[in-house]
């Protein structure tokens, strides 16, 4: 049986015979997941999978195909599928290219902390079990923990270039999550928290469980909200989702496909001066860290929004060439296709505390959760109508939990109304790190 290297050398030869070039990327992944329910093991999952993506450049066009079977015959079939695809696509599109001259990737400390593989399984089981047991014991109103679990992964990404070069990086990480369900009479409310860390020993189970239980318990008292317009402070974790959607419009792919709300906005004010977003692929403590992108382009730190103005689009090889702008190294493999996506997004915090922002107006709606961003936000127009929950802060009164309401507006108009950022960023290891965001006014539909 041939090694991957030998198979790839053979494919390069076959490609030459077809007046084509080929590159192959291989992702191999091992993962473990553990969850408990009602104090019994609910699921022990162990996955070992691999995926090869073959890209063939023929004439001007690039065909792609993927397979999970890494045998020589399967890769040969994959090559033929990619070649056939290339022949169907636009041969005159001269913006396609394959990676050549790959550089050895920079070493990023802590991206791979594989020694935690040596931790006894019993310790990991204990951690997974505690995610449920601590929640159930937290308060007698916590009636159930529908979802909780621990997972870890080890991943290796290798790219064989059309010139026969090879670059590789390995990464690892662990995550934990808990959804606590609080019940009082006929009312049930849930609270969900998750955390990602490069090393499971950095996961603070108590903090995670406490936060999810407290959220569920506080929402038990939630009251309906009066329909109207409110200033809102969006809690950092929920705010991260809004920033992620906003930045997706800086993808050169979205711009090229006429799907971007920011296509004509480079250098234009879309938010106040203090709003700054940086893409930082070297932050190993965050989920999106990587030394090079899916096409082998070295990662780089990119200022996306400064002074409230978009500075550049995120690109890969193709869109960089097509739009004559620098390649920022943001190619990702998504369902076997190359796409463009950020790595880690960092929104710079300010000095205000959350408490200071909550009293900036006579009443402020503090949103701890915004749901349904996938279905309730129209990516083409920016219009949104999203279910939310949180707390209403009115001066001189204790905060009231509120839920069963919908916030509506437009994404670009919302960021124009950004009034302030807190000094508190989310610490969940998510690939978006963001402070709380204060917006001047938003339309809210409630039950009274």
């Amino acid at each position, binding site marked *: 049986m041939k090694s991957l290297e030998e198979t790839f050398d053979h494919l390069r030869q076959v490609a030459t015979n077809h007046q084509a070039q080929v590159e192959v990327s291989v992702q191999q992944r091992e993962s473990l997941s553990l969850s408990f329910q009602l104090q019994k093991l609910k699921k022990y999952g162990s996955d070992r999978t691999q995926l090869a993506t073959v890209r063939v450049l023929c004439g001007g066009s690039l065909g792609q195909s993927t397979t999970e079977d890494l045998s020589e015959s399967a890769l040969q079939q994959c090559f033929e599928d990619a070649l056939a695809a290339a022949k169907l696509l636009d041969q005159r599109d001269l913006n396609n290219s394959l990676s050549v001259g790959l550089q050895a990737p920079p070493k990023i400390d802590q991206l791979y902390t594989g020694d935690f593989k040596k931790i006894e399984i019993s310790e990991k089981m204990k951690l997974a079990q505690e995610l449920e047991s601590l929640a159930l014991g937290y308060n007698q109103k916590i009636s159930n923990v529908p979802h909780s679990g621990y997972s870890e992964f080890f991943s290796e990404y290798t790219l064989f270039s059309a010139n026969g070069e090879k670059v590789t990086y390995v990464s690892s990480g662990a995550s934990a999550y808990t959804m606590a369900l609080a019940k009082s009479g006929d009312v049930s409310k849930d609270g969900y928290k998750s955390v990602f860390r490069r090393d499971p020993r950095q996961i603070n189970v108590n903090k995670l469980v406490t936060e999810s239980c407290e959220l569920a318990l506080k929402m038990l008292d939630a009251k309906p909200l009066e329909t109207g317009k409110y200033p809102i402070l969006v809690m950092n974790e929920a705010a991260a989702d809004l920033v992620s959607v906003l930045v997706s419009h800086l993808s050169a792919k979205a711009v090229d496909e006429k799907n971007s709300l920011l296509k004509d906005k480079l250098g234009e004010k879309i938010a106040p001066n203090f709003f700054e977003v940086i893409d930082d692929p070297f932050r190993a403590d965050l989920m999106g860290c990587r030394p090079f992108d899916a096409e082998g382009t070295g990662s780089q730190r990119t200022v996306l929004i400064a002074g409230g103005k978009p500075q550049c689009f995120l690109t890969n090889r193709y869109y960089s060439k097509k739009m004559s702008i620098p390649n920022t190294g943001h190619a990702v493999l998504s369902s076997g296709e190359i796409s463009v996506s950020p790595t880690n997004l960092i929104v710079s915090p300010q000095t205000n505390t959350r408490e200071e922002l909550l009293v900036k107006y006579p009443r402020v709606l503090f949103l701890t959760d915004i749901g349904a961003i996938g279905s309730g936000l129209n990516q083409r127009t920016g219009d949104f*109508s999203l279910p939310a929950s949180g707390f209403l802060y009115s001066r001189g009164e204790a905060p009231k939990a509120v839920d069963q309401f919908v916030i509506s507006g437009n994404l670009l108009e919302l960021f124009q109304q950004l009034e302030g950022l807190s000094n508190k960023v989310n610490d969940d290891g998510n690939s978006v790190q963001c402070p709380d965001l204060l917006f001047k006014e938003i339309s809210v*539909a409630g039950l009274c």
Partner: protein
Amino acid sequence: MIVPVLVVNRTLEKALSNGADFAEIFIEDSYSGKLSVLSSQPKVVTVARLHGAGIRVHYGTEEIYVTTSDLTEKGLLDAAERAASAISRAEAKLKKIDLSEEPVQNYDAFQIYGKMPWEIDHAEKLRYLLSLDKQARMKNSQVTQVEPMILEKVQRIQVANSQGIHKTDQRTNYRIFLDVQAQDAGKTETFAVNRFSTKNSQFYQELDPTALVDEAVNGVNTLLQADYSPAGEMPVIIDNGFGGVIFHEACGHGLETTSVAPKASVFTGKLGERVGESCLTAIDDGTVDGGWGSLSIDDEGNTTQKTVLIENGILKSYMVDQLGAKKTGYSITGSGRRQSYKFAPTSRMRNTFIAPGTDKLENMISDLDYGIYAKTMGGGSVSPGTGEFNFSVKEAYLVENGKTVKPVKGATLIGKGIETLGRITKVADNLKLSAGTCGSVSGMIPAAVGQPAILVSKILVGGRV
């Protein structure tokens, strides 16, 4: 058969070798093709081949699930060893597995195959997509972008377990999407339509491209003329077809034993109780001829069934998979489903719909003083533990004094499952099923939703204030 029976037997024996009381292997070999056109040019032609196995063992209700993409005997035995040695729960013992030499083949029950996707010229499919693009642009000069796309999948599976099941199945899924974007007076809107089929490649010949284009372009035109939806609690008429997503989200997920068994559903313990008005009967049926969620066998090898969930407002049954049956004692309903071998199966919906009633849609509208007529629904989600759901409305109209007066956009409906069920006060006679993709713990699966038009007497509409 993807893997010889001898290897299957050995794999199951190895998986059971640490004392597990149940072992199962789910083997998959899938082909997925995607073709799309953008800006009037072929944009994507890709092929993906999925190939692997999931091995599951049970110690009582404790579940071990191991996957591998190595289908050699060595790869499968290694995976079985990982499954067997994952935890130590019982005394090791040897159990002989001797499955039938030839697995039961199921794939003629629902599907008669024409040409496989790889046998149909990709160039022909691209020409079809290009023709959709051209027709949409010709139909309306305000159209600024068109993205037609074909997704096709053939999934071959082999499932065997230590209780003697050894079956194979083959499923085909064809989908065409058409996404049209248009601009008018500085406003941009987009509208997407689709067609789905589990039948054969004849699907392409039977498609009516003009109807598809008309639906998409008319949809986007309507949105260009729409004002923002009013906000607040009000009556809403939800039309047939994809309107059934309300039942799917509001109640369906809460009726899966995945939520019921750990008492994490608002429907736990309510069998035999009234959960809706007597006009409400709801069914999950895996046997609908040509249904998007129909299957000969589920992903555990069990024959699919028609399951009446709610009859005349009374809760009659849950949707039960193998593990759910062990945990709850209810009988299996052939509802064990998964996206691929990478997911352990759980109880999931198939074709879920509200049975037709006797009311008429036109009467529902003419009887309504003020409210929303939601003609086409978008996606949504639910928390089964709290019953709180949300879903977006793609195409809607404001109703005043018994008449639709104008199109409205940007509406999201939110509510609580049981509460909303109790507010379904009228059910029309125009049942229709529509195809969709449902996401849950065992991945994304094809599932149909359906209903006749219904009137919800009061629901919160999130629109602009």
